[in-house]
């Protein structure tokens, strides 16, 4: 009963976010459409650059043009999901922490997790990339003549979720710095998420190990699209197991959980001596 009530509350929270997003779209339609369009163009330009290179040279490092297209679809879908759920700085959490705005979240009768998971949902203005990613995926699947089974779809969903966990966990991990240095680290999540975004869309096949391995360990850029795409195409790179992204995501999530909680405890003990009155609401 309690679980049902809780689920209903979560759905209501998503619904009110969606309603507000729609209201914003309908009130400021011109600006909203311009924002959606520029967002989509910006993300498409990143992937189309890589795709055009693959087209010009007949593939990249052992990946065919269509496999590169598949990888671009995967990347666009994860970007799309990020935008769909990440408006309102809930995924750029260092902004909220650095600006001393966590107190606005403490005022709500919700756990921080629930607030952060539901407050940035923008299905009307933020689903452009996801839709486009799905279209590109359909084209890539068609051209690759992939046989789609239920198991493959399940695997695809698991990999996408894993990538999302890595993106969010890394953002929250570096954002924990804002608990201790609010001014210096206010925009650190932007650097963590967007600073290396272009690198994460580049196929690493054919690169030497000293480039591939750090990008699968120290920085997870290789896990954002390249590694899971090859797993879904049936040939995981570097003789690693297909479960490697899951293990990485789990380890990163646990580390983030520990570090973020430590920072949060520090925040409620010491408070924030900084407050910026904008940006905690969309």
């Amino acid at each position, binding site marked *: 009963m309690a679980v049902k009530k809780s689920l209903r509350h979560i759905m209501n*929270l998503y619904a009110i976010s969606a309603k507000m997003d729609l209201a914003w779209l309908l009130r400021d339609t011109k600006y909203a459409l311009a924002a959606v369009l520029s967002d989509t163009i910006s993300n498409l330009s990143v992937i189309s650059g890589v795709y055009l290179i693959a087209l010009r040279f007949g593939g990249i490092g052992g990946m065919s043009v269509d496999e590169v297209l598949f990888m671009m679809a995967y990347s666009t879908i994860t970007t799309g999901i990020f935008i769909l759920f990440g408006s309102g700085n809930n995924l750029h959490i260092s902004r909220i922490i650095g600006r001393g705005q966590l107190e606005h979240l403490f005022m*709500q009768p919700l756990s921080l997790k629930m607030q952060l998971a539901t407050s940035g949902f923008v299905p009307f203005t933020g689903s452009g990339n996801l839709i486009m990613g799905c279209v590109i995926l359909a084209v890539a699947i068609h051209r690759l003549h992939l046989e789609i089974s239920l198991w493959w779809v399940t695997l695809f969903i698991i990999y996408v979720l894993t990538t999302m966990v890595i993106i969010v966990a890394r953002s929250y991990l570096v954002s924990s710095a804002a608990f201790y240095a609010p001014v210096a680290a206010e925009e650190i999540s932007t650097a963590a998420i967007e600073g290396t975004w272009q690198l994460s869309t580049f196929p690493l096949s054919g690169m030497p190990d000293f480039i591939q391995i750090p990008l699968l360990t120290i920085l997870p850029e290789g896990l954002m699209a390249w590694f899971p795409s090859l797993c879904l195409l049936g040939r995981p790179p570097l003789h690693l197991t297909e479960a490697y992204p899951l293990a990485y995501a789990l380890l990163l999530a646990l580390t983030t959980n520990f570090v973020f909680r430590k920072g949060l405890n520090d925040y409620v*003990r010491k408070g924030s001596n900084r407050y910026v*009155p904008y940006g905690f609401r*969309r």
Partner: protein
Amino acid sequence: MYPTDFAVSMNHVTKVFSQWQRDNTKAGMIRNLLKPEKRRITALDDVSFTIRKGEFAAYAGPNGAGKSTTMKLLSGMLLPDSGDISVLSLSPQKQRIQLMRRLGILFGNRTELWWDHPVIQSFEWKKVVWEIPDEIYRRNLATVIDLLDLGNLLQTFARELSLGQRMRADLGMMLLHSPGIILLDEPTLGLDVVAKRQMINFLKKINKDNDVTILVTSHDMDDLEEMAERILMISSGKIAFDGSFTELRAKTGNLTRIVVTMEKGCFPELEGGNLLSYGNEVFEYDMDLTEMPVRNLLGQLSTVRGVRDVEIKKAPIEQVIAGLYRDWNFDKTAGSGNI
């Protein structure tokens, strides 16, 4: 278990902050790099007080006295270093979610409204987040629209509201879930006379009619005196006074303002009076009636030539408080051995 008789109970609460210190010299910067210097600030020092259910209490003190820290501790935004806190028999630190369903908090310099949406959208958002039942929401919405005159503001975007309108909208939003206790930190900050009056009347009404406990901080002591029955004053992290405004005035002597209007060319000389201002034949004095009984004062005035009118009134509470702050500051300086 936490006490159930009180809306608020703070028991031996201490809160210490640290502040970075650095001078701007080259040596200072290098020293800071090797060994950063921090200063300990005791925001609350073993503070204990209780507030009864349905009470309207003011919480005052000079800048940096610990008022906002207290508000944040009571609402679970900060953890105390030591001591126990209970609000509506709940621990703000351990039962924050339950407490927030029953507590309303408003910081005068912050807004909870959605900036790029009309006010009513923020209200609807609150209904969902707080899970306010339809009937209660409708009833409370009608009440706040009526009492705070929000009818014309509901469709307006929050970013286009004036400060006074925004505060009214924020106050209305805060009350939608029928909180049992309200914490207000500088709610009248920056408001004009009309907006301030509207807010004060509203707070007094919901305190009286709905038995809502209110704890309010403000720099405007006259506002506090008009709103609250009781005043807690904090200085240097300690409760320096806890009682009624009448008791507070008595503590500083019976400070009184004497306004004497004279005929042209006449000048009153009042023994025991401190001339504050004069102009257009009106002379305003400050006087302690415990030193100079009113009988003696009237006797004096009867002998002064050219008196056209006399007005005796209580000194503004601001003046009383300023005197107290000066005394506390003096005690602190004397205590630290710097004098």
